[in-house]
């Protein structure tokens, strides 16, 4: 079959832009359901994965997305060996939106998968962080076609990708600055190793894992670039390969970062509202969530996710996002401790949300394109957007209207001491920032269903439904 035919067939079935690179198969959606085609060229690998017991072991360990094989599907499948329907992931997130702990767990999951694969005579041909998603709270491989049959003597083809996608950003976050995970937003195939080598502190040259896998690795890339070494360099035994995986794993485990000392790390200790106000807010969120029955909630400015959990009690999947790496890390650790399956902590700057990136700007979706949500929570958030970031209220209403159908939003008046703090260093150029101004702006896009004064505070909590 020619490429052209194959491509036209793929286009008809709504092939997803993110999966164009893989010759083993591709994702497509039909009738709102997501499928993955396994190409004939990948038949041997797929059969090995399923028959060796590797698939079952990985799924059981929560390391690989489960799928079912689809027998009948209309269409032209000359290139198809099998069509599978993977379990749908509630929300796709990207490594530049993960906290340190999330990226670390994704790295360890990848190595754990590789170790199990080697035992079953297979090896990962990709170690892309984008192939990992959080499913039921666990880092899980979602690309079923990432495995190849292992040939004795071959090195790990995904080694460089693993270093760029996981080891380098984790080392930079732990040992230089946690915000350097944002390099992943610029470098879609991971942090270039020469850049990581330059940015890491000098002392990392005395750490065996980082010396070899980053510093020497970067030098070797430069020194041997373009030389054909494969013919004369010899081979790598399976034992040596396992040793390499173990050493990467130990290098990753040694990297740590603890939240604290950042913007909002102890936010709830410095808020100005009482326990009664806090409890009342939680109660309202719980009640309104039960009323709107959302399947997907986006809690924006979630801090450590207290209200996300209140909204999640009704069974909704809650994306719990915040701008502060420390809050997201705490949220993630708490989520793991509770073994929550429906909370996804996420690092997100609402004043500059994740854009769509990659080839033709279609490989990774923007934050907005991954919606809309059924319900959006915007608690103690509006004053930051309207006053600190100067967004006019009508534009805020437009923004929220695009994100979701239901909106639970808190209005924090100018007289509130937290707002006064924001106004200390800037001129008050916000004459419309009043309860009346807020309501009239949001009424353009929403029906105001409820407006409740929060106990023991000057704040108002609203439940709104989009027109």
């Amino acid at each position, binding site marked *: 079959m020619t490429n052209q035919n194959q491509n036209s067939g793929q286009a008809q079935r709504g092939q997803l832009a993110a999966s164009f690179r893989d010759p083993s198969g591709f994702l497509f959606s039909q009738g709102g359901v997501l499928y993955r085609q396994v190409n004939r060229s990948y038949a041997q690998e797929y059969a090995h994965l399923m028959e060796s017991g590797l698939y079952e072991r990985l799924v059981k360990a929560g390391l690989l997305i489960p799928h079912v094989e689809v027998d009948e599907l209309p269409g032209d499948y000359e290139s198809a060996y099998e069509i599978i329907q993977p379990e749908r992931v509630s929300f796709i997130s990207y490594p530049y939106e993960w906290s340190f702990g999330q990226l670390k767990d994704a790295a*360890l999951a990848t190595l754990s998968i590789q170790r199990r694969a080697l035992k079953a005579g297979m090896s990962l041909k990709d170690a892309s962080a984008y192939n990992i998603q959080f499913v039921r709270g666990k880092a899980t491989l979602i690309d079923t076609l990432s495995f190849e049959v292992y040939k004795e003597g071959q090195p790990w083809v995904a*080694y*460089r990708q693993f270093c760029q996608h996981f080891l380098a950003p984790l080392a930079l976050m732990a040992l230089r600055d946690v915000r350097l995970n944002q390099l992943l937003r610029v470098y879609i195939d991971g942090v270039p190793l020469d850049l990581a080598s330059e940015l890491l502190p000098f002392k990392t040259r005395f750490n065996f894992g980082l010396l070899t896998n980053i510093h020497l690795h970067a030098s070797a890339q430069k020194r041997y*670039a373009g030389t054909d*070494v494969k013919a004369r360099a010899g081979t790598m035994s399976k034992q040596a*390969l396992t040793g390499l995986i173990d050493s990467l*794993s130990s290098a990753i485990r040694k990297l740590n970062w603890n939240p604290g000392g950042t913007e909002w790390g102890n936010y709830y200790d410095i808020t100005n509202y009482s326990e009664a106000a806090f409890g009342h807010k939680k109660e309202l969120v719980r009640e309104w969530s039960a009323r709107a029955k959302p399947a997907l909630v986006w809690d924006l400015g979630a801090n450590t996710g207290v209200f996300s959990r209140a909204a999640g009690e009704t069974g909704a999947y809650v994306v719990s996002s915040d701008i502060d790496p420390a809050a997201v890390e705490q949220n993630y650790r708490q989520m793991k401790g509770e073994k929550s399956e429906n909370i996804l902590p996420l690092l997100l700057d609402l004043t500059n949300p994740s854009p769509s990136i990659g080839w033709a700007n279609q490989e990774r979706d923007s934050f907005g394109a991954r919606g809309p949500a059924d319900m959006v929570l915007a608690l103690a958030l509006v004053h930051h957007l309207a006053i600190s970031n100067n967004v006019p209220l009508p534009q805020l209403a437009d923004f929220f209207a695009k994100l979701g159908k239901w909106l639970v939003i808190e209005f924090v008046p100018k007289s509130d001491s937290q707002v006064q703090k924001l106004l200390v260093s800037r001129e008050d150029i916000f004459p419309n920032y009043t309860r009346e101004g807020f309501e009239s702006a949001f009424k353009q896009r929403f029906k105001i269903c409820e407006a409740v004064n929060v106990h023991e505070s000057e704040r108002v909590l609203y439940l709104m439904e989009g027109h």
Partner: protein
Amino acid sequence: MHFAPLPYLDPGSGSFLIQLLIAALLGLGVAVRASWGTIKKWFGAKPKADEEDDEPESK
């Protein structure tokens, strides 16, 4: 030092070689540790039970 991208140069060769180097160094470590066990045995130390083969579940 140059910072220009090198469009025709594949960094794959270096990544290949460094894996062999690390494997060699790790192999050396394993060999030393293995012989250390033998040396200790000569002096009457009891051999340790084999370490857990299966890795812990990822958290």
